[in-house]
């Protein structure tokens, strides 16, 4: 059984003459003794011959076909290919413009205004009075702000209106503190 496995493993190489002499002799001796392996050998040999004969002819090209292919290849080789730099120049320009826009954006808009507007809107939505920040950084309600201004000896006695007060976003912690007050 082991000999059969050994023999069949090397059968194709044996048929094609690709085995070392010693191994080839072993396979040959086994084939003379074993009818089952000999039957497989005959089949393998016929298949090998069929494949060698038929695959050599399969897909044989005609001269006109080869000439037509050569014309296409020659045309392709003569056509100048776009350089990588040219091909990607559009993308490079686009990326550069986007980068510039990102750099200039913080200077173009007043960030405080944007955030303040949002806070005003959110405060109105939630029914909370507008908030402002005192010079020491504490968020206070508008009413408290008026009280502070009244207590201070200022020349301008007119009370600030909500629209004229610069609304600045309070930090979430400060907002809750201010509401509690």
């Amino acid at each position, binding site marked *: 059984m082991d000999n059969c496995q050994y023999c069949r493993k090397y059968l194709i190489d044996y048929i094609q003459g690709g085995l070392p002499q010693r191994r080839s002799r072993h396979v040959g001796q086994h084939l003379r003794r074993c009818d089952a392996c000999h039957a497989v050998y005959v089949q393998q040999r016929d298949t090998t011959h069929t494949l060698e004969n038929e*695959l050599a002819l399969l897909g044989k090209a005609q001269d006109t076909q080869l000439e037509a292919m050569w014309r296409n290849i020659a045309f392709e*080789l003569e056509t100048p290919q776009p350089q990588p730099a040219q091909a990607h120049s559009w993308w490079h320009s686009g990326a550069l413009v986007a980068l510039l826009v990102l750099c200039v954006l913080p200077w173009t808009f007043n960030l405080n205004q944007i955030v303040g507007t949002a806070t005003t809107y959110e405060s109105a939505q939630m029914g909370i009075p507008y908030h402002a920040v005192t010079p020491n950084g504490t968020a206070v309600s508008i009413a408290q702000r008026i009280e502070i201004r009244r207590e201070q000896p200022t020349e301008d006695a007119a009370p600030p209106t909500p629209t004229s007060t610069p609304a600045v976003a309070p930090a979430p912690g400060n907002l809750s503190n201010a509401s509690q007050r």
Partner: protein
Amino acid sequence: MTEQPETLRLIEAALRGDQRAYADLYHQHAAGLYRLLYGILLNKQDAEDVTQEAFVYAFKNLARYDSRRAAFKTWLYTIAVSRSRNVHRRQRPISIDMADIVRLKTPVSRDQTPEAHLTQQCAKEAVAQALTKLSARLREAVVLRYGHGLTYREIAEVMDCPQKTAESRVRLAHNQLREQLRDEGQGLLEELLSL
């Protein structure tokens, strides 16, 4: 691995810009490369497309070819097989174009009887049909081995796999083809006997 002096001379001339050398290199290898690709892809149009792609790529990258590492034919086959795998990836299941097989029919020679000619033609069709049932890798291995007589080492280079893998693929493909051709062969024999 030693390259033939004639091929080396053509490659050097092509690298110097000699257009005629490109044409000569093409005519030296085109028929073999097309036959290889037809055997793998089993479709005339695909085989033509990949042949052209492979030559264009090879000629544009001719300076990269190293004659000490592989023969020019092996290098060209490596490019072609690699490109044919792209076709496999985007392709439907292979169905052989029998019109191509019929077109390849050889004329009846004077020594050959019509029956013998018919048997030969049937064998050709049976082989082509059996090839369609193999996986792409096994088909590559068997076509390189039997259709082009490459050694296992060369097959391993072209298929980019270890030599042992190339050997086992050839063996596996051979066994599968033997099973299929045996079944076909019995049918053909019965058909021929009933004539």
